[in-house]
């Protein structure tokens, strides 16, 4: 190929093809070095002065570092203060490996028909010394790995780059200025990046170190993928003050997740450990039922990140107010008895015993079970034992005390009380009602009220039904009979 004809500079006869190749090949390294050596050399203004790249960068093709950049004295030949103003320029100083794994001699040996301009020329190739860094798109236009773009997911960074932890020459500022691949801006990136990171051709190490992951990952000290990255002080400094990000995974969003997560957690505790410390679990699992499992989750001392901070819940706040976690299905409060009593549902995994006694203790503090206006609607539920009042309340002490306060409890004298809703024959009718709903009766009537008729002290009307087993009851508590009977009716 006639480089001179192709470039159109009009100096074809004076610049050899070999020199042009060498000159253009060394240009990237020269330009790269400006970042560390001071102000970049302004090539374009010197276009009429230098006819060959190799004039200044002779050592690039051979890897001779000493001859890769011109001596400072060469500038002084013109910039002596009289012909041209003095300038301060120094060749770049390499303090270690950079991020780019690139060898001009190797490329020169492997690649044919390539000039310095092939990689370093800017948009207008007709302008001499209009050069700059080699942009990555030029690299992937030759390399046959099929990447669609420099920062595309299908690129293989290691083709050209070494791991960041090895690129010791980069400053904090350079690391901070790394371009962000478009994939990282996708809404699902955080949730989906794990699989990509574990892939054999993962690209993470090019830009990231352990500290990048340990900003969010609780298991940063355990996870093999993270451990493989290595530590980097620059990344550590850059991560200081950055808040962790914990988006909610799709399978966590279902209303039943809180109830059903145990199975998936036990199957893959490592997945939980990515975002959660043991404290997350113990927000709900205050009991000992999940203790063995929780040991597999890092505690705060082992964690490399704060982890998801679940709502700070106390036994009192766990299920109160509009923030309820929908752990149990609808109707659970009424139907949980057998599940809890049998032990099938391990209540103690999440609830302290106080959680039970908050309701079953008989006095409502949190509005967990009854709505605010339950008092106004409770009668049918009490009569039908829809909600078994006595499982939480002492009907004598709780119900009767309230009914007395509001004037509902029966007075001592049968004749002085208002009857049941304008039913004048109620006294005759009450037997069936009493046997069907005796618990409700006791919320207003004391024992002596009924004994006015149903005892030896009163009218001696027998309250016992046909199936009453007096002997059985007497055997359990002989004193009971003597409450109503002057003497034990079973005594011979």
């Amino acid at each position, binding site marked *: 190929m006639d480089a001179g004809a192709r470039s159109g500079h009009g100096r074809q006869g004076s610049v050899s093809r070999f020199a042009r190749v060498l000159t253009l090949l060394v240009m990237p390294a020269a330009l790269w070095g400006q970042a560390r050596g001071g102000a970049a050399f302004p090539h374009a203004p010197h276009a009429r002065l230098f006819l060959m790249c190799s004039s200044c960068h002779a050592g690039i093709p051979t890897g001779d570092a000493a001859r890769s950049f011109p001596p400072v004295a060469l500038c002084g030949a013109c910039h002596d203060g009289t012909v041209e103003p003095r300038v301060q320029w120094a060749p770049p100083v390499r303090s270690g490996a950079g991020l780019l794994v690139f060898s001009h001699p190797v490329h020169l040996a492997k690649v044919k028909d390539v000039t310095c301009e092939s990689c370093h020329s800017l948009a207008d190739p007709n302008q001499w010394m209009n050069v700059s860094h080699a942009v990555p798109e030029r690299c992937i236009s030759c390399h046959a790995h099929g990447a669609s773009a420099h920062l595309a997911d299908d690129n293989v960074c290691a083709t050209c780059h070494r791991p960041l932890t090895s690129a010791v020459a980069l400053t904090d500022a350079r690391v901070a200025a790394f371009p962000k691949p478009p994939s990282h801006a996708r809404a699902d990136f955080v949730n989906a990046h794990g699989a990509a990171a574990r892939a054999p051709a993962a690209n993470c190490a090019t830009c990231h170190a352990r500290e990048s992951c340990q900003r969010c990952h609780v298991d940063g000290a355990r996870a093999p993928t993270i451990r493989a990255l290595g530590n980097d002080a620059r990344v550590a400094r850059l991560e200081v003050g950055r808040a962790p990000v914990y988006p909610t995974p799709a399978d966590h969003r279902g209303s039943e997740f809180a109830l059903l997560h145990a199975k998936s957690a036990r199957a893959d505790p490592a997945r939980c450990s990515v975002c959660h410390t043991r404290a997350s679990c113990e927000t709900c699992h205050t009991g000992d039922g999940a203790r063995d499992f929780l040991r597999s989750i890092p505690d705060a001392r082992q964690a490399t990140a704060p982890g998801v901070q679940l709502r700070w819940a106390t036994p009192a706040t766990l299920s109160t107010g509009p923030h309820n976690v929908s752990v149990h299905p609808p109707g659970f409060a009424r139907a949980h008895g057998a599940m809890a009593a049998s032990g099938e549902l391990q209540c103690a995994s999440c609830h302290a015993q106080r959680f039970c006694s908050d309701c079953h203790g008989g006095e409502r503090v949190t509005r967990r079970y009854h709505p605010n206006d339950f008092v106004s609607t409770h009668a049918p539920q009490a009569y039908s034992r829809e909600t*078994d009042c*006595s499982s939480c309340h002492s009907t004598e002490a709780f119900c009767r005390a309230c009914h007395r306060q509001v004037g509902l409890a029966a007075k001592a004298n049968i004749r002085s009380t208002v009857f049941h809703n304008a039913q004048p024959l109620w006294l005759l009718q009450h037997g069936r009602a009493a046997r069907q709903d005796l618990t409700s009766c006791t919320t207003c009537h004391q024992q002596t009220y009924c004994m006015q008729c149903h005892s030896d002290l009163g009218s001696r009307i027998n309250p016992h039904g046909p199936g009453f087993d007096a002997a059985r009851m007497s055997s359990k508590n002989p004193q009971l009979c003597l409450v109503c009977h002057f003497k034990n009716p079973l005594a011979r």
Partner: protein
Amino acid sequence: MKRLVLLAMALPSVLAGQGLRISGVTTVQFIELRPLIADSIDETLVPGTGESRTVEGGVPAICPVTSAFCQFERSGNRVSAAPVLQDLTVAGWGWVQGLSFRGDVRARTQLGGTAGFLYPRGDDHFEVLDAYAQLDRDAWRGRLGRQWVTGGLGAYAFDGADAVWRPNGFSVEGWAGRALVAGLNEPYTSAELAAVDNIPPQQNGYVFGGRARYRPDALTAAAFTYQRVLVADRSGLYSERAALDASTRRFGAAVDLGLVYDFATGGWNEARLRVGTGEGRSLGYSLEARHSRPFFELWTIWGAFSPVGFDEVRATVDWRPRASHFSYSLRGADRKYAETNTGIDLRTNGWRAGGDVRWQGGGALAASGSYDVDIGSGAANTDVRTGLGWMASDNLSFRADLMMTQNIYEFRIGTGRIYGASFDGAVRVRPDVRLVVDAGLYQHTLTNGAAGPDWTQRRGSMRVEWMLGRDPGMVGKAP
């Protein structure tokens, strides 16, 4: 001396390894109502003859032939109460592996309100709900102090000891101590019980109980519980019952069985079999058969009055379409009482039906509506509710509700309608401090001359939940 010095040197590090958590709930309530009071009127001003008449408005009255006055009841002046409850929970752990202590105490008082009108237990100023030490190891656990035992027989508090031995899949538990009245959490001879019954128990009781549980896998479990409460002088029992509970979740179905047997009356207090779908299904159902008969302890005479039970069938359907913001529930039940042998014609059955619709918006808004009707022996009503909630953030939420209840029939209180509107709000002021408030306005209209307390009122409460200390396993600052 040397030992003391060594102990003093070691104490800071020992204490640093311990955990202490103190949490509290402060609740202030405000309620109003017009209680039912007795009144009388000159017999000559009441139309009609005989003992049973009605005064103005159709309110029933009794006009004894021996008196010149008719007696009736009406709503009195408006009264109010403002009870305050302070709950305090202290939990400590860490000295020895598995050793912890726990205490829950409650203080009550009344801030204001009408003199003489007292919220239930408002004069019981201090209560220890539980206070026990626990030593918990892998295979066993022991507790000593005031504690609760919960199971198929309900929840019982007692002062005593409890021990559990739990090898793999199996556990045996036993407990004994001074019994406390269920639902009251006070000894049998307490003033609280004596205040509401003129034949209160004369002696305390001692509880003895045991439970065996078998849990072959995570999806199946069964438990048998036996408990008796002995009168202190051992002259008899206050109660003797046993319960069998079993539950399984296999093949996508959930089956629960609960049985409670009363040895004193020789009958079943509860027998319940429920079959339904497992959790997490889009379409769920349950079918339940239940027999229920009330249970009375033997310090009362009520058990000798031969109470009868009822048999009930119940069904529920819950539908939560996966891709929908809506979910729906339907429920219904029908029950029939056993023969009372009283020869009196009263309703011997009952039924209920209801349904609700819930809507969960994009996360911030939620709405719900429900309708229920409950017709039965003793009382009947219909109830309509709707509400809208807004969860502004994890730390701030509101909810507003409207309700209407119609008391169709009731033995004692009568018929009427209540319309109400209420508001709930919660704000988390700090990670470990939360404020919850609710307020409601209710309008009660009694109909058909019913004599009942007027429930027209303002009602509200404020609750502050707070915590000091850290949960086990948490170090560093609170989130």
